[in-house]
């Protein structure tokens, strides 16, 4: 028998003995029993439900014939005063201090912030047409079969199916702004030969003819447009009770890679430029996108290559939080830390309170720590985690790594503050000894 086989025999004996000693069979059978009970309960509930459904369906069928006739939807107005039923053409103006909501019977809602004005142009069985007179209204339309909803602002029309967005109208400049929160809309109006499609994460800015200027339309990434100048990062100057660190600004080199705002059409003048009106829909969003299956099989380099081919950067700007986070994970596990950071930062920026955001922030700290050995940056990200996610599942690790990062960055005062904070929460944690040494230093 070779050395390898002899060694493996010993290993085999050890692990099998360990597993056998645990006597796993009763535990396994108990779990299967529990699953059985759950399954039976579900079946019983199903059976009862089916019987009830048959009875109810018979009753409902008769009633439905009379009730479910195509009737126009209605709406109620909730504002500073008591709720009341609204009427077509009635001018609705929010007060200077309180918003006003138009609640439609199909579940949709249009909210006017203070000082905004609008009215309902039309109501039918499938939706409504709301005209904005002034201000930025928040629109939430419930999607149904044959939904026909429209928002009008000046000469612009926004066709809606089911979505959430903000539509702003500045009548002094005849300017429209549409910011998509969810779903997509099509906008028609001056300066557009074809409908302009605006999707989640994008913003459309359109300006009607004004003076000697031609109408203009721009579709851009809403997060880029909204991005404020990079805040200065405050270095902790003195011991503090809890780590107080300004959130690091997105990396400039990463931000520079963002797709630029796309001027989709400008008529007249020497700068005429035509580009596709329809906004890009990322292939990465598809459930059967290649990168997903490759990522699930652990083939991260190939998954990343597929994601890059299908528009990694656009995906980070358009996809939901979990997908963007998964893109970051794919890049990280493929060893492309620059792209991983790009995706994690997109999660943090676009979805500040989503489920994967805390892990994305932590990951940014880890990459700064492990890959760049930039301990000041790592301390900033771990500080962000500790401050924003005190109940996060990685709070113990983040608190410990904040301490280590500050020590390595030479920030002794900050390290002592982090150590004191750590000891208050994790006096027996893995970094407790280091924390005690730091405090006593």
């Amino acid at each position, binding site marked *: 028998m070779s050395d*390898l086989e002899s060694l493996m025999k010993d290993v*085999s004996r050890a692990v099998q*003995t360990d597993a056998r000693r645990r006597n796993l069979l009763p535990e396994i059978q108990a779990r299967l029993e529990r699953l059985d009970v759950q399954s039976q309960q579900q079946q019983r509930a199903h059976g009862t439900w089916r019987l009830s459904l048959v009875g109810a369906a018979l009753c409902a069928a008769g009633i439905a014939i009379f009730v479910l006739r195509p009737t126009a939807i209605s709406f109620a107005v909730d504002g500073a005063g008591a709720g009341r039923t609204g009427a077509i053409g009635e001018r609705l103006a929010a007060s200077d201090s309180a918003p006003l909501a138009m609640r439609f019977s199909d579940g949709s809602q249009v909210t006017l912030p203070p000082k905004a004005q609008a009215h309902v142009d039309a109501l039918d069985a499938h939706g409504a047409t709301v005209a904005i007179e002034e201000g930025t209204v928040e629109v939430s339309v419930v999607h149904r079969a044959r939904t026909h909803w429209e928002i009008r602002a000046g000469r612009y029309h926004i066709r809606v199916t089911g979505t959430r967005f903000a539509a702003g109208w500045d009548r002094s400049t005849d300017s429209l702004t549409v910011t998509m929160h969810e779903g997509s809309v099509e906008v028609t109006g001056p300066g557009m030969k074809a409908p302009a499609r605006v999707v989640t994460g994008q913003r459309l800015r359109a300006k009607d003819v004004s003076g000697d200027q031609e109408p203009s339309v721009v579709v851009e990434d809403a997060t880029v447009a909204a991005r404020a100048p990079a805040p200065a990062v405050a270095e902790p100057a003195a011991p503090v009770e809890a780590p107080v660190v300004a959130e690091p600004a997105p990396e400039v080199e990463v931000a520079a890679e963002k797709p630029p705002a796309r001027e989709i059409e400008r008529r007249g003048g020497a700068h005429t430029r035509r580009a596709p009106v329809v906004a890009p829909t990322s292939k990465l969003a598809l459930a059967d996108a290649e990168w997903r299956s490759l990522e699930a099989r652990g083939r991260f380099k190939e998954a990343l290559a597929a994601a890059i081919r299908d528009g990694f950067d656009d995906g980070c700007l358009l996809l939901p939080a979990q997908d963007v986070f998964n893109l970051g994970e794919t890049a990280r596990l493929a060893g492309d830390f620059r792209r991983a950071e790009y995706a994690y930062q997109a999660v943090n920026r676009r979805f500040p309170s989503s489920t994967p955001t805390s892990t994305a922030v932590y990951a940014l700290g880890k990459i700064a720590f492990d890959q760049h050995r930039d301990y000041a940056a790592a301390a900033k990200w771990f500080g962000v985690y500790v401050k924003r996610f005190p109940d996060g599942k990685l709070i113990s690790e983040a608190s410990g790594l904040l301490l280590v990062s500050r020590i390595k960055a030479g920030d002794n005062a900050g390290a002592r503050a982090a150590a004191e904070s750590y000891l208050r929460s994790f006096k027996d944690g893995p970094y407790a000894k280091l924390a005690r040494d730091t405090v006593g230093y």
Partner: protein
Amino acid sequence: MGIAMALPREMRPGAHVLNGGATAYNDDAELVAALHRGDRAARTVLVQRYEPLVERLVAGALGIDSEISDVIQDVFVGVFEGIRSLKDASALRSWIATLAVFTARGRIRRRRRWRWIRFLAPEDVPEVPVTGPQGETHEAVRATYRVLDTLPDDERMAFSLRFISEMQLTEVAAACRVSLATVKRRLARAEKRFVEAAKDHPALRERLTHGGRWADMADLAVTVETEGES
């Protein structure tokens, strides 16, 4: 003594004696037919019959690990969820083995992804209390799985199935759903990597200083690669 303790560890398909002495589901065909009918007693028999096999494969893949029980449970949940798709009852054993291999590999992959996130500074890594064998064997076991953690998943599975779970090459190939040649190639690469990495672990290095197979690893790898290609 419970049923589990009363049963022999490695129950092969065939006659099965229940606790009360009654014989039921003499072969896998009867067992699978009963499972297709939704017979709950058949399920118990299946668990009793194949738990040792699943345990051997999962424990071999994961080592001394607190998650073994969870993984084995996941395997059986998968078995009962998918049993209706099994048309050939004679393939029951290899089908369960495949499920066990893929479930264990999935757990290894998931753990590999999250290991990164649980990083601790080396000087602060706490000593985790470990149950199981002590002394030299304990060190060897721990070192073996540390080395296995560095191997690619597919090679690790081939290695642990062959050498720790002690499966035949053909069984490894069937469980991994690859050809015999592929398994041989994976094993050759895994052995080579294992030997190299083992040199950094005193507990393994001492066991592997007698030359023989280890000294000839490079030649062996070439030989097996050649066999695999043919």
